[in-house]
């Protein structure tokens, strides 16, 4: 897994670097846990402010065995996946049209700029008011937040297809559909997947923000509920689950990249 935090935000078209030093990562994680355990005990903080790792672990086992954790994780994951799917789908279609038609771009650009100027997090409450606390509003927030980075990368990716390869395809009398399938999709894929990598991370944020604003289930809901009961250990459990979700999604895209982009030079540091 790629844990370099800067890479996730870079519009990189390269697959993440191979893991080289899981030992370093493990040792640093172990040290962090130790420091946390020490702080919790030495500072004498009450558990509802800073629970010790052991307590969090115990809470994790309990929430896992009574089914709460799984139920809420499943709800959040479903929202994320649906949001990612819908947002990406719209981004691909609109992005492709923008890349292919200057006229369409001029038509739609003002709206895109306007929507990007609105912070999705700030209008999440409105969306929940309008569409209710159910799953739909979360999927909507997710897809809105995913839409833009994927759109931008789709446009950039399709526009970056070399003209000389278009010439080649036309000299072979390729149809529009063949040009899409044999040229544009594979050529745009690296940049597109870079956008999807960012989108996947943002989708987690979208879902949780929506759930925190108003929901009946999900990890965001769980955080709210646990906080209300001063069950801080459970808040920690939910947060760590979210981190795991985000890293996993990021990893899924990284695996896709490794699978589809093996023709690219693997970066040697």
């Amino acid at each position, binding site marked *: 897994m790629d844990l370099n935090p800067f890479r996730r935000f870079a519009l990189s078209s390269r697959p993440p670097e191979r893991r080289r030093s899981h030992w370093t990562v493990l040792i640093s994680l172990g040290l962090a846990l130790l420091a946390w355990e020490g702080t919790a005990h030495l500072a004498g903080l009450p558990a509802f402010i800073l629970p010790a790792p052991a307590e969090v672990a115990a809470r994790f086992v309990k929430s896992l065995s009574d089914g709460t954790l799984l139920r809420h994780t499943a709800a959040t994951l479903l929202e994320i996946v649906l949001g990612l799917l819908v947002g990406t789908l719209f981004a691909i279609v609109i992005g492709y049209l923008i890349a292919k038609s200057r006229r369409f771009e001029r038509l739609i650009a003002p709206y895109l700029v306007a929507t990007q100027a609105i912070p999705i997090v700030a209008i999440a409450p409105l969306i929940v008011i309008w569409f209710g606390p159910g799953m739909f509003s979360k999927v909507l927030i997710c897809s809105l937040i995913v839409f833009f980075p994927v759109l931008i990368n789709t446009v950039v990716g399709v526009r970056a297809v070399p003209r*000389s*390869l278009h*010439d*080649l*395809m*036309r*000299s*072979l*009398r*390729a149809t529009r559909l*063949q040009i899409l399938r*044999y*040229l544009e999709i*594979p*050529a745009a*894929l690296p940049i597109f997947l870079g956008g999807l990598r960012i989108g996947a991370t943002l989708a987690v944020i979208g879902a949780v923000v929506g759930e925190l604003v108003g929901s009946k289930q999900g990890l965001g809901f769980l955080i709210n509920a646990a906080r209300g009961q001063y069950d801080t250990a459970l808040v920690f459990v939910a947060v760590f689950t979210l981190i795991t979700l985000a890293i996993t999604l990021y990893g899924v895209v990284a695996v896709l990249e490794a699978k589809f*982009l093996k*023709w*690219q*030079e693997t970066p040697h540091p």
Partner: protein
Amino acid sequence: MPASPPTPILLVETLSAVFSDENGDLHALQDVTFSIQPQEFVCLLGPSGSGKSTLLRILAGLLPPTAGKFTFAGSNHLRIGMVFQQANLMPWRNVLENIMLPLELQGVLPDQARRRAQEMIELVNLQGFENAWPRDLSGGMAQRVALARALVHDPNLLLLDEPFGSLDALTRERMWTELSSIWQKRRKTVLMVTHSISEALFLADRVLVLTQRPGHICLDLKVDLPRPRTDDMRYSPHFGRLARKLKDAIG
């Protein structure tokens, strides 16, 4: 205009190309007229900017002519194989897959496409590189892949735009020999752009010389050197005389 020898495969008549933009008109080609016989190897020679690429792009259907026309004999099934100055390979396809592309576009079944691409690999001497990625190929190898790709779907017309222009001199001359032997095996009709006089004389049956812009054919020279052509011929007096004529025509 008197009729040329029987049934040319390509007939180009008073073709002109003008590029217009806000700065005015740029006449790239003016009244270009010539014909090519089946299985003929014709070189198009001219200084840079004389409209050679433009002419090839028009014939490949990538650009409409501003005036004039061109006709292919039996044009209902015209297939074109084109090689550009850069190899122009798809970086996400390996060598074999790149060569298979024209067949895939024609809907040839994968097994058969693979077999025919494999034959091309042997034709251009790339055995063992079937699974190599384009990024790992040298310039000469990449150009051979491009040549194989241009031949694999059995085109009636091969259009080559300075295919060896980006290669070093030694590789380029080796490619001449290879192209010449491929052409003798396959008997394709070839129209090849070049700005090298020796390249044209080494390869062609006929050389057409384009003038400086607007491009216009000022010499149609028959190259009556025997085949197969060898390195030694390039130092023969006749070769020298032909080269002289071409040089004078280019000006």
